[in-house]
């Protein structure tokens, strides 16, 4: 149980420091469990209870952040002292300001029908071993078979000098799988993640005893029947997984305001987007990308961000036009706008920074079949393996994990390791149709220094790109 009075008393200490324009205190309690199975055998079994707090002090010429896993009044006073000293030492020439936001007093929680904390190790192991057995039953030769289940229950209390007081409870869990399929002397790899917020009842929704056997059979098929494409210009239908990674990498990241302002310049990089590009075209009218922390059950779900700002959907690219950046209070102030609730931190030890939540291509009007039916010569890329993008988020590459040729509107044999290496405007500009059915994938997004991994969804419907270079 979080001691809210303690947090408020530490905030009082912080507010008494001279020239403080904002002080924040966050206290967190985290219970987590991890179980990994390798080839059907327990590889690791970890459980922990964690608690800690942080203090952030904003002065007109510096920001200081201090954190500790010791929750006590004495430690709180030490953190206040340390954060204040660090803020003072920065001596920033351009005055620091934050966007004005209404103070919030609320509590938000995600409910669980079956609490994660009450799921026994035996039940977790049974869950993982059933997946393993189902994969074995396919008779596909699979090395690895590494399945790791992780869950967290995070209780948090946030208080700031403007009067916000926000309590929260967020249960979140995920499963990561690593399979390596061997066939006829060749191999294909599959690295998947499934994540959600809520209780254990959500685990069944993943249908992993069907999904992962289907995955390894598909990879065997890719090896056995797959053929490389003749490099050249053709049409490409991207499945939700590929549309989703593109939405995340070449829309979500370049639209982070801290990146645009250069704050990530030495790590995650900058952006091809500049602050004055709102209203500029980057894609076709079918290219709408949304980042929405409030999608129910989504892996990247939250109701209020780490600065106490209410979460809401953000339309990043809207009908191909740069529409809205992801903002925290500092970046919003520098750009003359309001925060849109994009401040997140992986853990109480780390400073909150601008992050995505659940980023996806917005649905269109077409049925999936219609997208394929009008392709004379092309490929459908359902999923990817290797991918990357440059640090200004302009040059990206996706290599297929599952792909098929399309000839005269009909699906053909597997197309193996199809490579799409494309610029951001070329990708989003080539879209001429988007289907109705949005699907999501789970991922951990890395940013910040030390790198902070945060839970996100990526997703979208099927999107059709006309005339792109494939190899």
């Amino acid at each position, binding site marked *: 149980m979080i001691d809210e009075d303690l947090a408020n008393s530490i905030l009082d200490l912080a507010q008494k420091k001279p020239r403080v324009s904002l002080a924040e205190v966050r206290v967190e309690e985290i219970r987590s469990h991890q179980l990994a199975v390798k080839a059907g055998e327990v590889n690791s079994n970890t459980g922990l209870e964690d608690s*800690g707090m942080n203090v952030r002090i904003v002065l007109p010429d510096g*920001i200081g952040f201090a954190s500790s896993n010791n929750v006590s009044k004495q430690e709180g006073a030490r953190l206040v002292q340390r954060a204040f000293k660090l803020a003072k030492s*920065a001596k920033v020439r351009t005055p620091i300001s934050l966007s004005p936001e209404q103070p919030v007093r609320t509590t938000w929680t995600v409910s669980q029908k079956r609490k994660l904390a009450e799921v026994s190790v035996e039940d977790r192991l049974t869950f993982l071993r059933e997946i393993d057995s189902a994969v074995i039953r396919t008779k596909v030769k699979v090395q*690895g078979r590494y399945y790791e289940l992780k869950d967290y229950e995070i209780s948090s209390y946030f208080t700031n000098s403007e009067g916000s007081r926000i309590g929260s409870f967020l249960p979140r869990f995920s499963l990561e799988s690593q399979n390596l399929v061997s066939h006829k002397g060749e191999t294909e790899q599959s690295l998947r993640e499934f994540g959600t917020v809520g209780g254990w009842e959500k685990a069944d929704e993943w249908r992993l005893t069907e999904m992962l056997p289907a995955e390894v059979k598909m990879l065997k098929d890719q090896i056995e029947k797959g053929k490389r494409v003749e490099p050249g210009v053709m049409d490409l239908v991207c499945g939700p997984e590929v549309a989703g990674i593109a939405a995340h990498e070449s829309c979500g990241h370049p639209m982070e305001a801290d990146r645009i302002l250069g704050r990530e*310049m030495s790590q995650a990089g900058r952006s091809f987007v500049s602050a004055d590009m709102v209203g500029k075209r980057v894609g076709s009218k079918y290219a709408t990308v949304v980042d929405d922390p409030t999608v129910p059950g989504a892996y990247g779900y939250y109701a209020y961000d780490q600065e106490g700002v209410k979460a809401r959907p953000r339309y990043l690219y809207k009908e191909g036009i740069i529409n809205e950046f992801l903002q925290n209070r500092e970046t919003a102030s520098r750009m003359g706008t309001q925060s849109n609730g994009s401040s997140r931190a992986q853990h109480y030890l780390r400073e909150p920074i601008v992050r995505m939540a659940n980023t996806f291509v917005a649905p269109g009007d077409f049925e999936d079949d219609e997208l394929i039916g009008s392709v004379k010569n092309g490929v459908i890329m359902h999923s990817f*393996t290797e*991918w*990357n993008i440059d640090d200004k988020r302009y040059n990206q590459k996706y290599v297929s994990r599952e792909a098929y040729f399309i000839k005269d509107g009909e699906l053909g044999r597997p197309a193996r390791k199809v490579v799409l290496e494309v610029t951001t405007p070329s990708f989003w500009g080539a879209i001429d149709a988007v289907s109705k059915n949005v699907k999501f994938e789970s991922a951990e997004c890395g940013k910040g220094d030390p790198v902070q991994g945060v839970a996100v969804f990526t997703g979208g419907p099927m999107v059709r790109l006309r005339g792109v270079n494939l190899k």
Partner: protein
Amino acid sequence: MNELSELASHLVDVARDAGAKDVIAEAMDSMVTQVRFSNSRIDAANWWSEKHVELFVAIGKRLMSSDIRDLTRADDIARGIVASASRAPESRTYGGIAQGRFRYGRSRIDAKLSSIENPSSYVNEAIAGAESEGANNVGGTFFIRRIQTGIASSGGALADDNRISADLSVRAFSQPEASGHAVSCTTHESRIKARATGERAGKLSVMAKDPVQGQAGKMDILIEPLFLGVLGHSTTNMMTALWVDIGFSMYAKKIGKQVASKAVTFVDDPTVDCTSRRLFDHEGVPTRRNMIISRGVLKTYLHNTSTAKRFRTKTTANAGPIVPSLFLAASQPVAFHPIVQSGDWTTGEMIEDTKNGLYMNNTWYTRYQNYSTGEFSTIPRDAILKIENGEIIGAVKNIRVSDNLMSLWKSIDAISKSSEEVFWWDEASPPSTLPSVRVREMNITRSQ
């Protein structure tokens, strides 16, 4: 014994009294100061303090790991972990923990580094250095890391370690698409080359000015230590027994085989003076110099006691952290300080000897189509300089190295005399000491 090893030893006793057979307790007390800067100004200063004990217990083959973060209840939590282990399912592949009478080296720390009061001054020096060479926009991070560790185990481990280090990363821009990156990693205050690091990043950013679109095709590449450090990240992961075991390694079944050119000797040595120096691994086994690749031939994987038993060999003292973290699995052995042995070239000689190539400062976002075969791509960033007939003739941009990692290591034909310690973000990690190398005929691709 100091306070931390006493605490660790006490918790080993508590866990054993509660019924555990194998116990490892690693107590850590860390204070990290960070100054982040961008656009040639300081953005924020951060400070993290953590004191906790990672505990591993086994009752027969029933295992449980945890991180005791509330030390006021440490004994009760430790007993609870043993109780959880007693209910845990068996791990039939568990091979035990290290047993022995271990002898450890001694910690050495620079008190001057420990007492730095104003880390911002180093950042301002670095910014000034970069600007003096022509950069107009400078960003990066400066860390001071103080970490004390005490370890104890039921296998006989008992030791303390005290480490302090500083690492500065500077990325400088002279134009929006012209940048250079340099780092300085040290265990001594007097060796923090803040201004020189800034100057080097600034100089590279000026060399990278007015880049033109790079072309696809086969090309020789000269890569700096920072670039090699980024490739080292995934290379060393694939050298670990866990990755080999699950098939996600191009080194599987390659012991005794040629996996790199004869010019390459690759060791892991955390016993040298470096920012990742450590006296013992996370099982408490004294660290040592391990020859991983000798003249291109793979000699061993990285092991802890349990993986070593499975592979019928001995631990290499590379046991990783007890508790898994973001990109690190539990029970995964880890490299602590990779070193590629220096060669006999100067960087200038390598450039002069190259007819058609690219000189590359740094890279990022290295991803694999298939870890078991090594097909990958990585995206060079910062200065990418075009070499023609032994001379740098300008800068290029927007290219990718799309090739095979095993081929890359096998195609190294020149290694520099000089090497440096590099560590940058989660990319060039762990800290490593590396030379510059030339790689023949790598495949360069670009977006269409």
